[in-house]
C-alpha cells in the first residue's frame, strides 16, 4: 500500500498543505537546536515534552489518513506511518511489531544526521522527535490513546551506530 500525498498551496494565505494538514519546510539546524533545547531544559522535562508534542501533533495526520483512505489493518497502518516518516524528510525506517511491542530501525535519521552534521557525534540519544513519531504510529495503528507506547532508543546514529534502533513497548 503506497502512501498518497496531495500537496496544495493556498493562494490567499500562502500556506502549504499536505493531505489537508498545514506543513512547513525547516532545516536540520532548527531541528537540532530544538532537540538541544529539550536537553538544555532536561530538568524541566524537556525531552519528554518534545516526545509528547511530536506524538500529539503527528497522530492527527495519521488518523485522518487512515480514516480517509480506509486503512484498517495494523500492519498497513505501520507501513503508511513508515512512509510518512520518509515523506516528511525524517529518514528511512524499518518497522515491525504488535499491539504490545515492536521494533523500529532507522537506517537514516534527519534528527541524528542533522545533529552530527552540525556538532558531530553525541554521547547520548537525542532523537526524541523520532520516538514521539513512533509512539504516535503504534498508537494509531492499534487504535490506542496517546502515551500507550513507550519508545526507547537502544542504539543511535548520533552516537556512532550504523543505525538507530527504537524499542517499542506497551506502556
Amino acid at each position, binding site marked *: 500500500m503506497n502512501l498518497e500525498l496531495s500537496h496544495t498551496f493556498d493562494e490567499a494565505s500562502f500556506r*502549504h498543505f499536505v493531505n489537508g*494538514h498545514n506543513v512547513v519546510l525547516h532545516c536540520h539546524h*532548527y531541528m537540532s*537546536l530544538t532537540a538541544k533545547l529539550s536537553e538544555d531544559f532536561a530538568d524541566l522535562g524537556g525531552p519528554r515534552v518534545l516526545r509528547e508534542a511530536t506524538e500529539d501533533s503527528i497522530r492527527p495526520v495519521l488518523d485522518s489518513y487512515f480514516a480517509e483512505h480506509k486503512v484498517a489493518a495494523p500492519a498497513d497502518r505501520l507501513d503508511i506511518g513508515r512512509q510518512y516518516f520518509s515523506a516528511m*524528510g*525524517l529518514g528511512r525506517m524499518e518497522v515491525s511489531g504488535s499491539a504490545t511491542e515492536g521494533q523500529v530501525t532507522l537506517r537514516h535519521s534527519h534528527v541524528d544526521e542533522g545533529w552530527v552534521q552540525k556538532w558531530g557525534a553525541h554521547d547520548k540519544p537525542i532523537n526524541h522527535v523520532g520516538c514521539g513519531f513512533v509512539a504516535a504510529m503504534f498508537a494509531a495503528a492499534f487504535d490506542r490513546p496517546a502515551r500507550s507506547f513507550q519508545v526507547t532508543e537502544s542504539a543511535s546514529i548520533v552516537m556512532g551506530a550504523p543505525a538507530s534502533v527504537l524499542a517499542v513497548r506497551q506502556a
Partner: protein
Amino acid sequence: MTVMRDQVVKSLVQIDVKANEDGLMPGFNVLVNQLPTAFWNTVAERFMAIAPPDRKADMEKALVNCAYECGYHTGYGIVSSSEFQSVVMPMVTEGAKDVLRGAFAVFTAWGWAKSGVVQIRDGERMVIRAVDYYESDSGGSGLRAYMVRGVSAAFMELAYAAPYPNGMNTFSCEQTLGREVGDPHGEFVITKK
C-alpha cells in the same frame, strides 16, 4: 524593477520538495524537513508552558535562537542557491535591499509567513510585516512568533553584517504587533545590537 514577492513565491512553490530514497531532503546546503505546523507550534507552546516564571525569558530566547541559527545558515544556502540566482537575482536592482526582499519572498514560499519588507534603513533597521504566519495559530498568550523573529534577524545579518559565516550576533528582532493578540498583522523590527 525590484523583487516582486508574489512572482517569486509562485516560481518557487513549483519546486518539488521530495525526500530521496533515504527519506532525507538535502537542499540549500542543509537537510530540509516538512513537518506539520502544529508540530512546531505545539513544541514551542509546551516548552514555554513548562518554564517557570523566572526562566520564561531564557526559554523564549532559546526558541528564538533555534530559528535564528536556522535562518542564518539556511538563509545563506537559499540566497546562494541556483534557484535564488535564477528566480530572484534577475529582479535585483537595489543591491542588499532587493536581496532581502527576495529572501523574504522565499521566507513566504517556504510557508514560514506571508511577509514582506515594509521599511529598510541600509544596514541599520528593517521592519517586516506578516499578514499571515503559522505561529499565530498557537494557543499560548502574548506575542509568540519566535521563529519569525529569529529568521528575520538572521536575514538582516546576511544582507548587512560581516560576510557569512562571520556576521552572527549583529542584529536583533523584536515583535511589536501580532495576529495572535488581535492585531491585523504581525510586525517585526530588526535593529543593530
